[in-house]
């Protein structure tokens, strides 16, 4: 049996050791309980909670989701009970579980991220925090934290100061210089980086002549975005030294392997769970079987293997830049 275990916070004494590298993604697995009936949650490497905010949120008006070619758009609007409501309900349940629970936090001000991190720091049943920086920074006129290296680092630093819990910072694919943001959050104290969050998209209802979603725009996820996600993981893996958690459109083992080969030490699976909840455990089983067959003893052997030579740390924004631009020109 090959070794599937991975530590996502090797620089952190509290460490974040997963028995396998398959994680259920934020917003696609509720609080873990929703799926307890249809699958064996204990088999997972970990799961990430729905995004929690400082105050309760009732979310966006309906419709909130719509299907797109090989993908979906969502504009849930972070419906959640708020950090206080969350704290009362879930940690005590998770404490009795063997699978690590990671809490995803979202906020519109740096202090609010820190506030939530401080609250989570002391709680049992919580293995780590995933910081969702794809949120509007109210102080910056609604400009997205995750699009800017400086603002991303500010959030990371504030959360780092507020907790010793393992910290995964989740990057936004809307950032033009994804490598620059990655380096900035690494420098600011992130234990690991996860990517990608959804791309911003829109569908229009031709009959009503209005955007399908009440919120107009929504987050695009699913297989449609996989090539963008793999590219970004590949680029970020060429630059940072902390572990990377890759995601975006994983629908089975082969997709997960693309992310490992691109440089991810673990993967998250989101949208695919909706279509095939059984897929999570299937990927874990098939990964073990594949490694056996290929004679791979430990996952580390293939992480980043698609890189011709893993380059040393490069200057922000320069990874594959020429390639990238040239190719976009067909």
């Amino acid at each position: 049996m090959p070794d599937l275990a991975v530590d996502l916070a090797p620089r952190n004494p509290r460490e974040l050791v997963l028995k396998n590298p398959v994680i259920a993604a934020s917003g696609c697995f509720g609080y873990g309980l929703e799926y307890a009936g249809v699958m064996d949650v204990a088999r997972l490497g970990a799961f990430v909670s729905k995004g929690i905010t400082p105050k309760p949120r009732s979310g966006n008006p309906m419709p909130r989701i719509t299907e797109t070619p090989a993908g979906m758009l969502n504009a849930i609007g972070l419906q959640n009970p708020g950090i206080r409501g969350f704290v009362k309900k879930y940690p005590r349940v998770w404490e009795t579980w063997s699978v690590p629970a990671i809490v995803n936090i979202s906020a519109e001000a740096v202090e609010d991220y820190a506030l939530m991190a401080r609250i989570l720091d002391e709680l049992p049943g919580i293995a780590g925090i995933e910081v969702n920086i794809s949120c509007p920074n109210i102080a910056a006129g609604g400009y997205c934290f995750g699009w800017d290296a400086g603002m991303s680092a500010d959030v990371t630093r504030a959360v780092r100061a507020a907790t010793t819990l393992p910290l995964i910072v989740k990057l936004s694919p809307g950032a033009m210089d994804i490598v620059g943001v990655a380096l900035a959050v690494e420098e600011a104290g992130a234990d690991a980086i996860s990517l990608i969050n959804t791309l911003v998209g829109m569908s229009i209802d031709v009959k009503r002549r209005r955007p399908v979603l009440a919120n107009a725009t929504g987050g695009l996820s699913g297989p449609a975005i996989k090539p963008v996600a793999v590219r970004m993981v590949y680029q970020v893996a060429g630059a940072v030294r902390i572990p990377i958690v890759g995601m975006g459109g994983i629908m089975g083992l082969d997709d997960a392997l693309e992310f490992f080969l691109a440089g991810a030490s673990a993967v998250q699976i989101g949208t695919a769970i909706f279509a095939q909840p059984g897929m999570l455990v299937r990927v874990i089983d098939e990964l073990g079987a594949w490694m056996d067959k290929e004679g791979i003893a430990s996952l580390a052997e293939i992480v980043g293997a698609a890189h011709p030579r893993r380059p040393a740390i490069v200057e922000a924004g320069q990874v594959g830049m020429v390639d990238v631009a040239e190719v976009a020109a067909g």
Partner: protein
Amino acid sequence: MAREFDGEILACEPVMGDSTLMTVTLPRGMAGGMVAGQFVQILTRMDGSHDPLLRRPYSVYGVDPDTDTMRLLVRPYGRGSAWLAERQVGQTLDILGPLGNAFQISPRARNLLMVAGGVGAAPLVMLSEQALARGLSVTYLMGGMRAEALLAPALVPAAVEYVVATDDGSRGHRGFVTDLVPDYLSWADQIFACGPEAMFLSLRGVVMRHRVGGKPTVQVSVERGMACGLGACLGCVVETKRGMRTSCVDGPIYDMDEVVW
């Protein structure tokens, strides 16, 4: 408890003009626990294709615990249902279910009125059977575009009063099924409705205008786009007087008066 399972198609019977009544196998013992109003979610694409991506919800039309089977009523509409309607006996479907809550027959109810629009007919047949088994009286109103779009009378339990309406008047009342409702308002203790949103709005108008002292109560099966089917994604919520409720776990059946329309 919901499970993801492979159901084998045992029969495909053409009904209601363009629709198909499909008989599908269930895991042993599941049928007995399924109740009227619940639904299943089916993966409607070939292996290896990722489009269309999400499952499609279908109401349970009926179950047979003896043979461990259920029946589904599928109307070919868009890409998912067209794929499903093309499946053949012997093929298997990837099914998640049973999902959702159920129609609730009040312990004090004697007379039940069903109001069905199009494929909304599906869960109300099963509910009628459950009501008859309890010795209750059932009237089943159904509306459709044309005579052929209606559920054949043979598919409705014989002890049920079956009254129909068609848009073109080719059978029964010419007009909306909701036009028929006022006649039954004083008789019915409860109304159960399943159909398009426009039908609910019209039903609501009729009931609000005519009912006395909040009787009859009305339960509706609300159709929302869904992703997970398990209350995890929060994509299918309905605003109720007590806040946002998922239509896959807290629904699809809602008390009409609870919903913020």
